[in-house]
């Protein structure tokens, strides 16, 4: 088990590094940062000075390695735009994004598990069809459109929740609903499919045949098996969550990581973007690894794979 984890950990690190190399190359390919940074009254000399201060005069691989070395020591560099420490900037915003992500995930699970189970138990019935339609509609509704509609209804007409900010839990309700609804369909499909499979296993059939109460069979035995793949999906959904949070955070003016990333793209603030991309890819590989470990622990047969 330990060797398995170590092997996967090494792979995860290589994946995150590859992503950061690609991101670095893409950003540096896009033009002369020094000229842009020099700003007004930039003489060739002052551009040269800036190039030297930021180390932009060195070959790109050298720049990358020195960036990586700094990152390894916890130094993500300086933001070109805000002229402050990138690590501090990210640290200041990550809290809001984590709250938003956790709340959205909670909403998605709270919606998808009961609906998925219901659809599986009454597979093929009108309930199943309704749940499927709901999930298809969730996939079809663009998150930015849903966000605007929620603002219209809950902020303007009902005045129940604020449309922007991050001061209290009330500020997170509308963004979390938008994002939660957006990521619900894939979970629902997985729970439904997993439940149908689980209900058809010999084990559950035997339990039923033995006359165990249907409710107990469903909740104690089938659901537990059906939820195993859901753990894995949580990691995969992180990417989707992040993509959604760029849009959602900017509409709801939620001062988080997604909006910071979007801003840093508009401002060509590469050190910030670089930091966010590295953080996200690391989060992805670590979460996938965790979910694999949990799955392996739940189901020893997977360990061999």
């Amino acid at each position, binding site marked *: 088990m330990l060797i398995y984890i170590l092997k996967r950990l090494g792979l995860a690190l290589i*994946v995150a590094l590859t992503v950061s190399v690609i991101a670095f190359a893409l950003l540096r390919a896009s033009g002369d940062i020094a000229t842009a940074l020099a700003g007004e009254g930039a003489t060739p000399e002052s551009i040269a000075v800036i190039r030297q201060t930021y180390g932009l005069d060195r070959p790109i691989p050298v720049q990358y390695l020195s960036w990586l070395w700094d990152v390894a020591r916890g130094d993500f560099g300086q933001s070109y735009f805000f002229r402050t420490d990138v690590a501090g900037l990210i640290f200041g915003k990550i809290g809001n994004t984590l709250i938003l992500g956790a709340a959205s995930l909670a909403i998605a699970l709270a919606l998808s598990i009961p609906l998925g189970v219901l659809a599986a138990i009454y597979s093929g019935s009108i309930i199943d069809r309704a749940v499927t339609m709901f999930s298809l509609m969730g996939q079809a509704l663009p998150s930015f459109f849903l966000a605007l509609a929620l603002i219209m209804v809950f902020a303007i007409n009902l005045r129940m929740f604020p449309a922007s900010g991050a001061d209290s839990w009330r500020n997170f309700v509308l963004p979390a609903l938008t994002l939660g609804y957006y990521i619900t369909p894939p979970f629902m499909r997985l729970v439904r499919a997993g439940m149908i499979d689980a209900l058809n296993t010999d084990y559950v059939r035997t339990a039923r045949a033995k006359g165990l109460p249907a409710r107990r069979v469903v909740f104690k035995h089938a659901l537990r098996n059906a939820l195993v793949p859901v753990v894995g999906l949580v990691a995969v959904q992180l990417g989707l969550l992040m993509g959604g949070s760029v*849009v959602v955070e900017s509409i709801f003016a939620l001062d988080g990581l997604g909006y910071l990333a979007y801003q840093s793209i508009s401002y060509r603030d590469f050190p910030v973007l670089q930091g966010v991309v590295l953080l996200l890819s690391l989060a992805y590989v670590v979460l996938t690894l965790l979910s694999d470990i949990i799955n392996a622990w739940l189901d020893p047969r997977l360990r061999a794979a």
Partner: protein
Amino acid sequence: MTIAISKPSRLLRNPSLVVGLAIIAAMLFVAIFAPLLAPHDPYMQDITRRAVPPVWYEKGTWDNILGTDQLGRDYLSRLIYGARVSLLIGFSVVAISGVIGTTLGLLAGYFGGRVDTFVTFIVTVRLAMPVILVALAVVALFGGSIWVVIAVLGLLKWDRFAVVVRSTTQQIRALDYIASARTAGASTAWVLLREVLPNIAPQLIVIATIEVASAILMEAALSFLGLGVQPPLPSWGLMISEAKSYMFFSFWLIAIPGTALATLVFAINLAGDGLRDLITPERS
């Protein structure tokens, strides 16, 4: 595909597929014949007649059935031309990503071993990249246009193809007739293209539909953020973005393109769902 054609009765018994395909066909028709169907030039602005409401409102007129936008352009005409943008992007992206993903998946699934390890690694790297951020950054750095959007999304969205094709190919590879074809001396390319590919076609079509829908939504999101298709080209996402500051007083300005977008994506997903049921009937 062969399954769908050979069993028309089953096709008809699948309402999801029929409804989904019907909507897609209607939208395709509108997109192809846009110049004939659009009542006005979608780019013609009349800034003295701005934000005229649709005909069912009190102030609406039959001249602009869906009203006019914030620059006085006919909204119905823009909506019709917008279908072109969405469908063009959806299908082009999938054409690119489908080829990349299928090739990688076929190679990994068929050869296994080091090739498989390598492809799996690339897929993991791709999954670890935050797609929307990378797409936004590339479009911001290299300029926004419909072709940049297609290229970026096409180069990013092949992961699902690769994953599914890989595992399906692995299963098919073990089957008897592939083995017999190989022992009969058929070339690898022949086996892959003539034996393996047709057998994974049903799964490919299902993924393709899901991916078309997802690409359309992504383009809309990029355009909404101002980093996708550039004005004055009518993209539904861009239309929502341009109209969003009018939404409190002219909600239809975002509701109309929003509904069109949701309907198209819904129809594609519905068709994809129906296709899936057709291919794996035991699931439904």
